């Protein structure tokens, strides 16, 4: 069993997920199969409400699952663990803690000195040097997200899950943050899985892009991205973008066509 999973740091097999909303069963994820290798950067794109965030939370262990199997670091996922960090869209820094305490939030098992060093290293890593004693309300959106990434990485997890981390940022800050996260991934060699609804972002960051259909969420296609395609404005980039577009909007475009015929 362990041998079979050696290559894959995350393995999702035949995962189905239902939610009960007002006594009605809602199918969120259908037959998800996904294998992620160590050091990969996977991006997941899909319409809002397609269950991509749920998938991420299941991998993280924040949401339980009944049907299928999810394996993380060679073990069945039963809950959150220190080897898997998570960054949320709304940074979720605690407003009453200074940045250094937010970054060190999950580090209570370390000694005071170890904690201080780890926190400082990660604050430096995300470029927030000098803001250790600020409160989150004093930081801009981009800086808050940097702090959230530092918190997610502080435990030195080998997996970092990112749930639309740059979704609330303005376009310029977002591009800057994308560069930052690529640099951090190169430095830390962390396996990253990022959910996004920004197709450009998915291509620039992902080694592979998982395209999901609307509810119930199914994996439509997994697209490998060459390093050439990861450059914005390259021809390869446009081709990949077009491909994703087609996957995401094939249904709605058909609808528009029929409208014209009528």
């Amino acid at each position, binding site marked *: 069993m362990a041998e079979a999973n050696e290559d894959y740091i995350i393995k999702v097999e035949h995962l189905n997920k239902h939610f009960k909303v007002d006594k009605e069963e809602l199918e969120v994820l259908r037959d998800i199969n996904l294998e992620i290798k160590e050091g990969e950067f996977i991006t997941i794109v899909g319409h809002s409400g397609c269950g991509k965030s749920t998938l991420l939370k299941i991998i993280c262990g*924040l949401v339980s699952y009944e049907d299928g199997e999810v394996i993380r670091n060679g073990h069945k996922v039963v*809950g959150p663990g220190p080897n898997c960090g998570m960054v949320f869209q709304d940074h979720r820094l605690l407003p009453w803690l200074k940045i250094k305490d937010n970054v060190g939030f999950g580090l209570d098992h370390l000694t005071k000195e170890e904690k201080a060093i780890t926190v400082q290293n990660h604050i430096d890593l995300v470029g927030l040097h000098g803001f250790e004693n600020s409160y989150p309300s004093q930081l801009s959106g981009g800086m808050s997200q940097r702090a959230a990434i530092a918190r997610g990485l502080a435990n030195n997890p080998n997996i970092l899950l990112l749930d639309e981390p740059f979704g609330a940022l303005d376009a310029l800050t977002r591009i800057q943050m994308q560069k930052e996260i690529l640099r951090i991934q190169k430095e830390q060699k962390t396996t990253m899985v990022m959910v996004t609804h920004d197709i450009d972002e998915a291509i620039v960051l992902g080694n592979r892009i998982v395209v999901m259909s609307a509810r119930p969420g199914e994996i439509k296609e997994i697209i490998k991205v060459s390093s050439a395609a990861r450059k914005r404005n390259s021809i390869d980039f446009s081709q990949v973008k077009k491909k994703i577009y087609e996957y995401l909007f094939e249904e709605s475009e058909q609808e528009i066509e029929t409208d014209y015929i009528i």
Partner: protein
Amino acid sequence: MKVLKTIALGIIVPIAIFILWFWATETGRVATSLLPTLSMVKKAFIDMTSSGQLQKDLLISIQRVLKGFLFAALLGIALGTIMGMFSPIRAMLEPFITTIRQIPMIAWFPLIVLWFGIGEISKVIIIVLAAFFPVLVNTLSGVIQTPEGYLEVAKLYKLSKFKTFTKLYLPHAIPQILVGLKLGLSVSWMAVVAAELVAATSGIGFRMNDARSMMRSDKVIICMLVIGIVGILMDKIVSLLFGYLTPWQKVGQKK
């Protein structure tokens, strides 16, 4: 300039009242046994403070408030937090507490006097009853309003129930707990005066009633003023505590 204007606007009404008062008493239109002259009030104040009687009464009342209030605050914060964190306990206690809360503090008097007499203990119990509910209700609402997203962070880092309390629920609820404490302190100050008016042999409320029975309206007015001023001071002290306990809110406001 703006501050001066605010102050100027704020003192118009008190000054008008004083002028009216002065005019009504000095011209003899109102009997001084009902409304004393300003100079009589001033003299009564000097008499009461130089004999040390006012300070003594005030101290007794404040001590009663502190005893009752501190107890009520601890009880209210503890129970409010427990109810907020454990929904079955909340479901069990909330209807009962909501019902009990409708009974005015004064309506507890007869029963408490019956049970505990008119000694110290009954006054403290009245204060506890008065201050407990505002603290409890505000703590509870502060705790249950802790955003789901923050709790998910606690889950992510596998925080124990106690750590979740100290790192999430409590700091999130502090602003509202302080609102509850402020309300609680002000009602306990009212409660002690009311209790002393009804049944007591010492304290500022007793002194006021005593002065009334001797037709000393000047002394009654002094007591009323002192009660008002002490109330404001207590409120200010809690506000100071507020700023000290929630430094993150101060920086948020500055921005």
